[in-house]
């Protein structure tokens, strides 16, 4: 067994065993608390540039299958685990996850004290790290120290599609709507969810201008999830401004942040992000709580629209954490969802134009299916509009 190591930008060293592919990788380290779905996580383009620590100790137990891939390529930089399974046990499995990562050139570490690393991230914030085997500590330390942070980095251009493509419902099924999706790093299961509801989806590059999209005569436009800081995504933000009020809009995750920025709100970096499958989100309109799948390092500050300071949280988040309804250039914007762990914004809706978005992942994959009804709402609403 080959020794492997992780060194953080602030100089902490974590010892383990090399897994996946040989080599050295660097990126911002984030932890994910989901207990299943390691393959969906590693193939989610939103993790572009990141080193993912799974807090669940055993990874790879049920192997890997192409059915679970969220994208063709892996954009995450490395995977850190406590124990990488050498045996895959599942009727679905095509190969071990270790082989799967190695085949795709992804560096991984096993036998790491992932809880220590998680606590380090929690207490000190997300930070760059360097990971590798056959390399000494000082070398890794200098690589980590020299690595860029995520803020201000446009990672979407590294993951968005070069060419437009179409994702259709299964042959023979009824097509009820045509949606253009901005690929900011779209997960395959989002397309599956839309296709399953009879939506034909045209996926376009992140830089596509509003007029080009409108020329396709879509019933609605979807803004996908994706990696990193939303602020540098000026072309996408501008495009959304051109679409607001002219076609229904629905955004998820980074798409939610882009919509927020387009409406004039600001975004900010969370200390260590939300990455997991157990985040409680309250739907403001009916008080119900969904357990949601989350993966983001930045959040929308809807209070910024009002000119007021976002309140600091004290105890369980209540109504005081909700940003008030605010008039913008696109009409009134309302906060629709609230994160019950830290009181951050989880969703918004425009009351005067057809646009809404959520910070979490209703498509799950991985994570609970509680919020899949949002796709029903979206498809239902565009059915009504186009009729």
């Amino acid at each position, binding site marked *: 067994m080959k020794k492997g190591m992780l060194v953080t930008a602030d100089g902490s060293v974590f010892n383990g065993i090399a897994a996946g592919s040989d080599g050295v990788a660097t990126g911002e380290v984030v932890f994910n608390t989901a207990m299943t779905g390691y393959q*969906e996580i590693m193939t989610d383009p939103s993790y572009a540039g990141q080193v993912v620590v799974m807090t*669940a*100790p055993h990874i790879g137990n049920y192997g890997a299958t192409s059915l679970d891939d969220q994208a063709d390529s892996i954009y995450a930089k490395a995977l850190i685990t406590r124990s990488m399974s050498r045996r895959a046990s599942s009727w679905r499995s095509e190969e071990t996850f270790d082989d799967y990562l190695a085949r795709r050139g992804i560096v991984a570490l096993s036998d790491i004290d992932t*809880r220590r690393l*998680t606590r380090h991230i929690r207490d000190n914030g997300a930070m760059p790290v360097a990971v590798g085997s056959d390399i000494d500590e000082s070398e890794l330390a200098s690589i980590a120290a020299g690595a860029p942070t995520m803020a201000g980095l446009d990672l979407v251009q590294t993951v968005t599609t070069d060419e437009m493509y179409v994702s259709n419902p299964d042959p023979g099924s009824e097509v009820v709507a045509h949606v253009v999706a901005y690929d900011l790093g779209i997960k395959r299961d989002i397309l599956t969810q839309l296709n399953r509801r009879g939506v034909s989806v045209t996926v376009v590059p992140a830089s596509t201008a509003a007029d080009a999209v409108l020329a396709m005569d879509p019933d609605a436009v979807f803004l996908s999830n994706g990696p990193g800081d939303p602020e540098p995504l000026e072309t996408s933000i501008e495009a959304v401004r051109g679409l607001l009020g002219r076609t229904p809009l629905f955004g998820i995750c980074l798409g939610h942040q882009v919509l927020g920025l387009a409406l004039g709100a600001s975004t900010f970096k969370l200390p260590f992000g939300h990455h997991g499958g157990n985040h409680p989100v309250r739907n403001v309109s009916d008080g119900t709580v969904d357990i949601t799948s989350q993966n983001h390092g930045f959040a929308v500050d809807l209070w910024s629209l009002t000119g007021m300071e976002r309140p600091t949280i004290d105890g369980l988040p209540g109504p005081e954490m909700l940003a008030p309804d605010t008039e913008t250039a696109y009409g009134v914007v309302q906060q629709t969802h609230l994160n019950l762990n830290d009181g951050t914004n989880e969703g918004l809706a425009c009351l005067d134009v057809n646009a809404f978005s959520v910070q979490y992942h209703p498509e799950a994959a991985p994570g609970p299916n509680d919020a899949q009804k949002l796709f029903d709402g979206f498809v239902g609403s565009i059915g009504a509009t186009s009729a």
Partner: protein
Amino acid sequence: MPKSYSTVSSDRLALPVPKRTDISSILVIGSGPIVIGQACEFDYSGTQAIKALREHGYRVILVNSNPATIMTDPEFADATYIEPITAPFVEAVLRKERPDAVLPTLGGQTALNVTMELAKTGVFEELGIEVIGASLEAIEAAEDRGKFKKVMEAHGIVTARSHYVTSLDEALTAVADLGYPAMVRPSYILGGGGTGLAHDEGAFIDIVNHGIETSPVSEVLIEESIAGWKEFELEVMRDGADNAVIVCSIENLDPMGVHTGDSITVAPAMTLSDREYQEMRDEAIACLRAIGVETGGSNVQFAVDPLTGKRIIIEMNPRVSRSSALASKATGFPIAKMAALLAVGYTLDEIANDITGATPASFEPALDYVVVKAPRFDFAKFPSVEPVLGTAMQSVGEAMSIGRTFPEALQKALRSLETGRDGLNGDRAEVEVTSLDIDELNKRVRVASPTRIYETAELLRRGVSVDEVHDLTAIDPWFLDQMAWINEVRADVQAAGPSSDALRQAKRTGFSDAQLRHLWGVGHDELAAVKNSSDVKVTYKTVDTCAAEFEARTPYFYSTYEEDSEAPAPGTKTVMVLGSGPNRIGQGIEFDYCCVHAAFALGDAGYETVMVNCNPETVSTDYDTSTRLYFEPLTVEDVLAIVDAERPHAVVVQLGGQTPLGLAKALEQAGVTIAGTSPDSIDMAEDREQFSALCARYGIKQPPHGTATSAAEAQDVVDEIGLPALVRPSYVLGGRAMRIIYSIEELSRYLSDLYGAVPGGEVDLSDAPLLIDRFLESAIEVDVDAVFDGDELYIGGIMEHVEEAGVHSGDSACVVPPPTLSDEVIAQVIVDTRKLAEGLDVKGLLNIQFAIRGEDVFVLEANPRASRTIPFISKATGVPLAKVATRVMLGESLASLREAGVVPAERPSLSFTAVKEAVLPWSRFPGEDTLLGPEMRATGEVMGIGETMGVAYAKALRGAGHSVPDSGAAFVSLADRDKTVGVEIAAILSEMGFKIYATHGTAGHLARHGIATTHVDKVGEGIYDPVRLVEDDKIDLVINTPAGGKARGDGRLIRLAASHHAVPCVTTAQGGLAVANSIRAAAASGLDVTSLQDHHAAAGVGR
């Protein structure tokens, strides 16, 4: 500047409904005595619920017949009824207390069943009482397998193919459709009682007949077999606003076919992909909605075909269960507390997660460790039963462990079980499997058994592939590969020999010091040297519900070998309490009760408390019972490591039964201060010769006795002291391998049973000498519990046994105040107790068993530690003996405790009689003779309180689940020595209008005393065949006492028949008399119920 609308008012944020104010008093129903399938997890859940409800302002009334519970401590509920959990008694409580609501979902199947029974009587409507937690319709839909199946199908959830039948004919038609093997499941049963997998028609007919009889509604489900599929369980919570969360997923290592209570189980699930898990999650929540569980916790079980992923739902329990206790301990999410709060209208998002304090309970715990639960069996106690696991639960306890990985957690769980194993083989006891040839191993692993895990690991170690072993066992290959990994580490570590690197590898895979000493062939000192020179050190991680995402406030720890430890800095005034580990017969909830009391008492006295235990069912392992909780195996290595981290002022070992006592010597040698009585004194009490010398010095009488180290010596001793004699090996708990012999032939039979047939008949007993006591026939046995502070003695209680000496104290009923002892005898008992307390230099608790013959007082044994009767006597007298003793152990005097109000100024004088009755697991082991003897076999106990002994005993019998008749027919068959008492029994029964059947000898004797009987034939002969009479429901009560310890012949057949047909069967004359008296008393007294608080107020104690 954008225009901002007025800040959102709370009406835009749909706020959850607050707690209910239309109800103010709630009756909580407990689960009664500990039985197989329903253990102390319901004390844990009930205690949590009662605390939570009272904190939120509700008046709580409790009914529970089990005195050994924390929940029945008088300070927990507002009114505590230690009364039988039967419909008539619970109804009497309802009428007296008039609660607004009944919460039946925290007391297991017992509480649900009695609630359903009461619902049918209409009493809830009559009194305007609402059933909260789960509606009656929901309970019915979940419990009735036929209805459950229909509801599931209506919601598109797949169930096993099955037919629901009420007769054997229908069952045979059903199985013709489904084919063999077929599963049989009776409706409304707990712990899988009566269920079985039939491979052929013969077995099928037996199981169906038994199942129809077992089911209270005489119905069984015949189901397609899914044996060999993977088994999963999800713990779901749902609130009144329809928010639902999965608290924990659990995967069984043993595939379908082994009851989940008897399986090794793992949390979280290990072999489900996210897609499969989320679908299962959706179905579990849909199941709760479909069944209509509006609020609270339920568990939903699934089976998954490993080849296709096909999933079916097996069952759901609309209540808190054993798995909820496990899930609570495994995640830190307090399911029972939440269930209680949800039942009164709170929603999950309104309640803070205790552990973080800053996030809501509406979330799903994320685990960054692996939890393994392993069952503990006591098959040795039931020689008629094959140690084979099936669909009916047989385990008597369980241990849980936490590790960062599955191999670590598995090895910790196995050493937590205290079955002589230090991990997954690689230990001294592995010779049990290394000595087997491969064919034998191949054969054994096909059958689920308590030892299969070790046999499977050994088979893998012999080089049989994971796939082959999977074919033999159906255990998932992932688990097998992890076990193979443990084997590989063992081989590496063994090959490397003592070194820091090997130590690291071994420790990170869960190997114990004991395993390393074995593998390296080194002693304690050599291993200690390797460990001291290495940087491999134990670390502690926190159980925090969130995988470190948020800071945890709750100090709940487990050990592992990692880079970073979260153990807190040692406190300045800390006392550590060692718990009692997995429940087993002879060491049950009573000891956990004592440990919990110690934690409470130490907290009251200003100490920080550290609890160490590995039993997930208990109150002691609740994270708010002590200041800090370490969920760890109770071994010298694990405990000393915690001592190193915590640096306690003292360690309490005398409250947790044999488990912590067994560690005391080693802890003391390592420099640990043992609180209270010294380990030397404890040893002195156990050591025959030292103890006899002590008794002789103080002029205390003992029955004649001797010690033997060979068969010949044993014979000499018996010749000298006379027959009958009580024989047993030294150092045993719960009367293991203890027997009364009436002849020399029985002595040789005993020796060959115990040590195997030895050529020439000579056995070497020098390692564990045989203890031989003259057995005092017809003596009254008395138990005394006392506290001694070195100066003053406090007698907690003097309890008189109903059954005579010779029946294990744990199996016999006992009574306070003692009904037949003279003042002189009582005075002598107190004098002897005081002398022994001084002689043994006791500081804390002392339990003594006496045998009284006439006016002669003999000491049978003395134990300077907590006894099984502490909770009972504390409940009866209102004086919390374990708390008193704990503070005495830490140096306070009884005088100062009296001043502090912990001990009453005067010993309370009881205005009532309290009876403790043992509960025996005969229904689980249908082939077992129900005769009582010196070997303890009870799993639990109940308490009955009444104005007279008759009334109290009548309640105790009902609480224990006996359907004692008030009229009908009694069958009486007595040994010669019991015939005098027999006349008394028969006279009472006859006076109460019973028709009396008797065997030839008994009938003649009764006739001579003017009692008319119908005399019966021998078994198998004639129309008055007693077995036939029992089987034909002609007999309502059996009183059968065996002559001369013979356990064969007609008596046994009659007892078995009674056991199978649920006819109460009494096997001692004193027991028979007590039953007869209780029938008379019950007829006269009716259903008077009184709360413990009222009883204590009358006796001038309590709050």
